[in-house]
C-alpha cells in the first residue's frame, strides 16, 4: 500500500433523494502512484465529480475505503478530516472558487491560516508561489480584478501552498480559452513532475488525457477502463 499515493478499494456511493436511491458510484477500485499525473474522465453524470469529492474527503463513501498516503479516510471524524484536507490535499475548481473579498495573496494564504504560522512566513510562501506562477505584480489585486487564467493560477497557488501530496483539479480548464487551458495543464503537469505531487484532473475533455500518465474512465458509476501511458 505504501507504494501508492492513493488507493481506492471497492468504493460505492448511494444518495437518497426524496426516498429514491441513486447509485452514483459502484464498486470502483484503482490506485495512483506518488507523483502521477492522472485524469478521471467520463461523460456528464457518469460519477466522476462524486469520485473527486470522495477522493477529496469532502464526502464519505457508502461502502469501500479510500487510502491517501496510507491513511484510511473513512475512519476519520470531521475534525480529523479537516486537518487531513489542510495538510495533504489541494483543490483546483472549474470556477476558481476564490474568496472575492480578499486579495490574491490572502487567497493563497488561506490554507496556512489553519496551521499556526507567523503571518510574515505565510505571506512569504504565498508570494514565492505567486511569483513562480507569474502573478507577482497581481498579488494585491482581488480576484474580480484578474482574468480567468490568472484566477486559476491563484487557485493553483492556493492548492500548492501547504505542500500537499494530492491535488484534485475539477475541470480546471472548463472556464478558460484553449490557450489558457493548455497553459494551466502544462503548469499542473510541471508541478506534478518537479514536486512529485500526485495530481488528479477530473474532466470530460479527452484532449487533456494526452498529458496524463494514467487515465481512469468512469461510465455509469463504474470503472469502465484504466489506461496507463
Amino acid at each position, binding site marked *: 500500500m505504501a507504494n501508492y499515493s492513493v488507493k481506492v478499494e471497492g468504493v460505492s456511493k448511494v444518495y437518497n433523494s426524496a426516498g429514491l436511491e441513486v447509485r452514483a458510484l459502484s464498486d470502483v477500485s484503482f490506485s495512483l502512484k506518488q507523483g502521477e499525473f492522472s485524469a478521471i474522465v467520463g461523460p456528464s453524470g457518469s460519477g466522476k465529480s462524486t469520485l473527486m469529492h470522495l477522493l477529496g474527503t469532502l*464526502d464519505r463513501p457508502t461502502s469501500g475505503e479510500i487510502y491517501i498516503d496510507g491513511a484510511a479516510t473513512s475512519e476519520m471524524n470531521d475534525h480529523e478530516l479537516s486537518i487531513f484536507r*489542510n*495538510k495533504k490535499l489541494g483543490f483546483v*475548481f472549474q470556477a476558481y*472558487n476564490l*474568496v*472575492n473579498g480578499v486579495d490574491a495573496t490572502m487567497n493563497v494564504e*488561506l*490554507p496556512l491560516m*489553519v496551521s499556526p504560522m507567523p503571518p510574515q512566513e505565510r505571506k512569504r510562501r504565498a508570494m514565492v508561489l505567486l511569483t513562480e506562477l507569474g502573478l507577482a505584480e497581481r498579488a494585491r489585486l482581488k480576484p474580480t480584478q484578474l482574468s480567468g487564467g490568472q484566477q486559476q493560477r491563484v487557485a493553483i497557488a492556493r492548492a500548492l501552498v501547504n505542500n500537499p501530496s494530492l491535488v484534485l483539479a475539477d475541470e480546471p480548464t472548463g472556464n478558460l480559452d484553449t490557450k489558457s487551458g493548455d497553459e494551466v495543464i502544462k503548469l499542473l503537469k510541471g508541478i506534478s513532475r518537479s514536486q512529485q505531487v500526485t495530481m488528479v484532473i477530473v474532466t470530460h475533455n479527452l484532449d487533456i488525457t494526452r498529458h496524463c500518465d494514467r487515465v481512469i474512465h468512469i461510465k455509469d458509476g463504474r470503472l469502465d477502463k484504466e489506461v496507463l501511458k
Partner: protein
Amino acid sequence: MEAKDILTLGLKQLQEKKARTALTVLMVVIGVAAIVALTSQTAGTTASIKNSLESLGPTSILVTPSSGTVFTTATEAEIEGLPNVSDVIPIVSGSGTLNVNGENYSVSIYGVPSNDLKALLGTSSYLYQGSNYSDNVTPDALVGYSIAFSSSTDPTLQTVAVDDIGALTTSSTGSEGKGGSSSSSKVSIPIVGVLQEHSSSLVDVDSGLVVSQGFAEVLLHKTSFNELVVQANSATNVSAVVSMLDIVFGDSARVTDTQQLASTITSITSSTSDLYIIIAAISLLVAAIGIMNVMMMSVSERVHDIGIFKSIGFESRDVLLIFLLQAIIIGAVGGIIGVGAGVGASYAVSSAGGLHSTPTAGAPTAFSSSSSFRGGGGFSGAGGGGAEVFTGAPGGGGFVTSTASASASSTSSTTTTVEPVFTASVVIEALVIAVIISIIAGIYPAWRASKMQPVDALRIL
C-alpha cells in the same frame, strides 16, 4: 485558526457589502441611542426633582386643606403646639399681572411671613438685591429673578430693579373662591428687593412676587391659608409628626412629607423610565431582526466561500466564528456609535427644552415627567381638578407652582432645563445589550453556515 485571521476574514466580508452593513449598524445605533437618551433624561429628571425636594429640606411637611376645610391662624397655632414641630410657615397665594416699566408679567403671588423666607427657600442668602419687605399690611414686594431679568435677548439685562414701582392687577371670585361675583383690583406696589434665582426650589419664586402675609390676604381677599409648611425638629421625627397631623386632621387635610413626595415621584419616573426602556427595547428587537436578516442573507450569498473554507481545512468552529464575529462587530460598532448618539440626542433634547408634558388649564399634571418644570405643572392645585397628590385649596393658588392657578398657567413660566444623567452602568449595559442581541441574532445564521457540508456548499456553486 488565530483570532486575528478570523477577525480579518469577518471584516473583509462586511466591507464587501458596505451599504448593507452601514444600514444594519444604523438599526443598532437607533436602539442603543434610544436607551441611552431616554434613560439619561429620566434619570436627570428624577435627580432634578430630588434636588428640588431636598432644597425644601428633609424635615418639611406639606399640609393642604381638603375641600371645605379652611386653614387659619388657629390651625397654625394648633400645629405649632404639636410635639416635635419646630415651625409652621403659612402661605397665602394667588396670581396677578404686574406692570413695570411698561411691561406686563403674569406673576404668582406668595404671602409669606418675612422671617419664614429663609426656611421656605432653604437659604439665608435669598436676596439678590435690596431688602426684605415688612410684615405690615404694606404694598412692598420682592420680585423673582426671572421677572427681574426677563429679557429674552440679553439675560444680563435687568428689566425690573429695586425702587421700581409696579402696578399689580389681581382678580378674585367671591370669598375664598367659592362662587359669588368676580372682581378685580389694581394696586401700586414698590419693589423693595430682587430674589436670587431659586430654580431648584419647589416654590417657584423666580416668576413670582413675594409679599407680606397680611398684604396678600388683603390683596387676594383671603382670610385663610392655601398651604402650611410644617417643619419637624429633626428628620427622624418627620414620620411621627406626619402621623400626628394625620390624626389631627383626618380627611380634612392632606399631609405629605418631602420624603414621601420623593418616593412618589421616583415611583412615577421609574414607571416612565420602564416605558421608555420598553420602547427602546422594541427598537433593539427590530435591530436584532435586521441583523439576523442580514446574516441569513450573508450566509446564503457566501455558500461559495463556506465551501472553499471547508475544503481547504477550516473547521466548523472557524466558519461559525467568522460569521458570528460579523454580527458582534455590527453590534459593538452600533453600540459605541449609539452611546455617542444617545448622549448627543439627550443633550439636544435638554437644550431644546426637554421632554415635557405641557399641562392644560384646569387639569394640571401631578408631575411633569419631563426635563423641565413648567408653570402650571408641578405640584399645582387649582380649582377644577388639580393634581391628585398635591392639590392646593380650591380656587386658590398651589403651593409650589410658578403661576399658581390653572388659569394663570399660560404666559409667564419658568423652564428649568434638566441636565441628563449618564451613569457608567447605563452606558455599559447599553453596549452589552447591543452585543448580546447581535450574538443572539447572529448565532443561528452562523451555526447554519458552520454546519454546511463542504460537498453541498461546493455543489451549489
